């Protein structure tokens, strides 16, 4: 699965994109797997209320299923306009 990071999430983790082998059923499960990987992931995902997630380029929430998902992106609340 392709996992993308934007803004300070990208900076904290230190890369914009990676491919991860996972059987995570939900976004929350994927987050748990990532947090267990390394300290920098633990730091980036320490406060989920400060994060937003998109699955296959649609905004969703952390309970969302990853069944059939190809791309997951994590980022802070958006500041467009």
């Amino acid at each position, binding site marked *: 699965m392709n996992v993308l990071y934007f803004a300070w999430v990208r900076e904290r983790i230190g890369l914009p994109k990676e491919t991860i082998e996972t059987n995570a059923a939900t976004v929350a499960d994927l987050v748990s797997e990532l947090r267990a990987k390394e300290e920098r992931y633990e730091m980036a995902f320490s406060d989920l209320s400060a994060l937003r997630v*998109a699955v296959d*380029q*649609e905004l969703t929430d952390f309970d969302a299923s990853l069944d059939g998902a190809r791309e997951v992106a994590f*980022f*802070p*609340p*958006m*500041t*467009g*306009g």
Partner: protein
Amino acid sequence: MRVVVQDQPFDFGAEAEAFASGRHDMGAVVTFTGIVRDFGGGGLDAMEIEHYPGMTQKALKKIAGEAVDRWSLGDALVIHRFGRMEPGEKIMMVATAAPHRKDAFEAAEYLMDYLKSRAPFWKKEHAASGDTDWVAAKDEDEDALTRW
């Protein structure tokens, strides 16, 4: 309906003129443009805008499409830049065309409210001092969506 995401500057006057021209059934055109604002005393060197290629265009089309449907707009335009911009540069613009002004104004405000919180853009300030800071989303921007 037209949605443009680009790093290059756009010509606000030419875009507004082109958007407003040749309409015989639309009595009102509203335009808004957002500009990089210095936070006083030349403290801001530049604003850098990151986005999510692939999702950005889709998210903007969805937001613009909802505005067109809800206010029965004749047309809508969204242009949003990414990359590095200096104070005074235009970041983005929206334009709406409707038979009457109330719908055109409301739809433009709706577009702006949703663009701020639901389109995947992130602003980073580069201060003249060399410090950089990701702009935090404001609670009031999220609250603004509840009125729709």
